[in-house]
């Protein structure tokens, strides 16, 4: 069974638009929250979001958008993209450079791309409104391609001339972890030699605020307190957007190209709660099963795990569910991994989260640190017995677990291991 490695990463996130900035933000626990201007209205009770910086993507017209000068995207490409398509496109550029890939390396039948995003509610809304007010034939010809779920894979696969496997994953907040898991499978099964894994979200008014209706968003007015997973006073998540791309390659490709990987993808597991469409199982049943399967597929014991990047989004119910799942896995005194939720810094990226946090794990392994769980002043009593780290540990984790849970009770756990 071929081994699989992460050889390149690209980031457009609320805490940095390149790997060095993101690593520094994680290490120093600098968050990306702000009083998001579009929320500062009396009728909007949610005040804080964690937007991407350096991009101006508010308009419905892609030709109004602006982004950092190092990226140039032609109008004919832009017109079929959502804001998060641009984030993913920029992250893709970084990942390709980071992995030192040439077009011949990535545009061939052995290289595929799996992606996840929730689509673009903003552009979908704009297009439908235009259709209802101006007529069916006045919809933008690429309105659908730009807005439906799948827009990221459509765009990146076409514009980067990807010729291997490609599809999109739709399991809400577990989506891009599923994408990474199945990319791993394709490599292990010998179907592909290299896979791009992409997670992205708009992270704007229309993608974040609908969560207010289910009371999932924090109503905190202080950006430094709004996202505080595992804190007893947490009151919901903070929305974010961005794009993250990882390059996964088989060991043969790593050897052939002579590149130094970030880490190995050791295995993964998934399981479902079978419980509720939107609420996690109170005992974390599905997540527990996913972690067990992930460790088994990686041939690792709970005692070998050094760090867990938790899914914990800062919602009252979800965090407890995950804490209970982890308490059932890490039962012995020898099994005391450091645990943190980097969503305290980034906010919750929905379909972006799994890929983004997997890339954080890869950075942590390569650069030798474990990011602290920020903004905890009074830990939830349910944390008792687990090692929630409240500051960054300057030590290299050898084995890292990344959890994700999505709507419908979908749970994914990914395992990363130091390369070599």
């Amino acid at each position, binding site marked *: 069974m071929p081994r699989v490695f992460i050889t390149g990463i690209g980031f457009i996130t609320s805490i940095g638009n390149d790997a060095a900035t993101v690593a520094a933000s994680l290490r120093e626990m600098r968050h990306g929250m702000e009083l998001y201007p579009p929320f500062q209205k009396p009728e909007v009770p949610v005040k804080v979001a964690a937007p991407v910086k350096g991009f101006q993507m508010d308009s419905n017209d892609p*030709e109004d958008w602006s982004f950092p000068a190092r990226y140039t995207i032609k*109008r*004919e490409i832009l*017109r079929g993209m959502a804001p998060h398509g641009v984030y993913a496109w920029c992250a893709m550029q970084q990942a390709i450079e980071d992995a030192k890939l040439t077009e011949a390396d990535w545009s061939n039948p052995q290289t595929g791309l799996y992606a996840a995003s929730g689509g673009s509610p903003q552009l979908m809304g704009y297009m439908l409104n235009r259709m209802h007010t101006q007529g069916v*034939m*006045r919809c933008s*010809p*690429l309105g659908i391609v730009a807005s439906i779920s799948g827009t990221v894979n459509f765009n990146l696969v076409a514009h980067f001339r990807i010729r291997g496997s490609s599809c999109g994953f739709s399991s809400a907040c577990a989506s891009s972890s599923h994408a990474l898991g199945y990319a791993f499978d394709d490599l292990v099964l010998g179907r592909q030699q290299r896979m791009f894994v992409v997670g992205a979200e708009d992270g704007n008014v229309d993608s974040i605020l609908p969560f207010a209706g289910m009371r999932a968003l924090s109503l905190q007015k202080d950006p430094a307190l709004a996202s505080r997973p595992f804190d007893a006073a947490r009151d919901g998540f903070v929305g974010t957007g961005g794009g993250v791309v990882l390059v996964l390659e088989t060991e043969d490709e790593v050897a052939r190209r002579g590149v130094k990987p970030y880490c190995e993808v050791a295995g993964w597991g998934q399981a479902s709660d079978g419980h509720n469409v939107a609420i996690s199982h109170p005992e974390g049943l599905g997540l527990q099963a996913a972690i067990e399967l992930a460790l088994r597929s990686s041939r690792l014991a709970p005692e070998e795990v050094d760090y867990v990047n938790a899914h914990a989004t800062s919602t009252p119910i979800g965090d407890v569910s995950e804490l209970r799942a982890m308490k059932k896995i890490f039962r012995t005194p020898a099994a005391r991994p450091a645990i943190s939720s980097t969503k305290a810094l980034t906010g919750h990226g929905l379909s972006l989260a799994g890929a983004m946090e997997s890339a954080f794990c890869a950075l942590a392994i390569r650069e030798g640190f474990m990011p602290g769980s920020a903004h905890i002043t009074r830990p939830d009593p349910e944390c008792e017995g687990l090692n929630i780290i409240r500051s960054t540990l300057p030590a290299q984790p050898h084995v890292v677990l990344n959890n994700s849970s999505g709507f419908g009770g979908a749970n994914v756990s990914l395992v990363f291991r130091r390369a070599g």
Partner: protein
Amino acid sequence: MPDSVQPSQGSSKPFPFITKPVAPEDEAALRESLKRCSPSTFEAAIQFRKTGNPEHLPAVVIGVIERFVEPDLRTKLKDADDDLRLIEDLGIDSLTMMEIVILVEDVLQMSINNDELRNLRTVGDVKTFIDCKVRGLPLPKPTKFLPIEHIAATMPIQPPFLFLNEASVSSNGANAKYKISGQEFFLQGHFKDNPVMPASIMLEALGQLAVLFLLEGLTPEPGKAVNPQMIFFTGCEGVRAHRVCRPGDILTLSIKPKRMKMPLATFEGAIRVGQEKAVIAEEITLTFGFMEVPAQPVTENGTAQAGAPSNGEPGAAPLRVAASA
């Protein structure tokens, strides 16, 4: 034809000016729609809205196309050669074409069917198409693009005396290119150690393009075709040479029919090199005659009538338009 739309009587007769006011909110919406187009596009569009005068259409159409063309290709449009091809020269794909259509529909308040778009290959096709739509005229036949093989097979004139490398023929004129290779036999003596394309040969080239138009651009009545052996030069007027043309120059030739009355066909013609005027001929007149063509073969299912024209009445209409121009 809608009663309210007057058929064109050509540019010599003024369009009936009826100015109607444009509501401020409509003007604002128009300005918003055209915000990425040049200011002159908006000016032309608002004038068209107010007067309905189709003379403003070319500026609107060019302005809309320009807005969708990559900036580095826009200079090509500045010099508005009607022969400029949308796909090959301007990089416009079918989706961009849809964007252009949607904006044109929006600005000119018309609707365009998908199958009407299929034949639009050049900037000139688009201008003519929109013009016909607005005036309520039948749509012209699509422009034909003829490579040298087709030209040589059609023409009574043959190398080394054929001065057309490639040509396009539509119902309202023809365009062609000819590159002066330097190998033309007459350049050895015209002039001594100083090869210059003779103006008489350039006039000949325009005449050849007019011949090609008669053979490829006309739709005569059923059972008849222009006889290639009966086309001859009769006269020309208002000929001026503006520029010395030498080997390496690419001549861009264009002719437009001015009058068609059996057996005479009169054209205006021009040759440019890049954007520079080279030769102008106010009138070139040819004689021509028809020949009988064999009846159309009956199709297998036997439904087609013998002798029926292959493209029927609608196809014949542009000739009448051209003839009345």
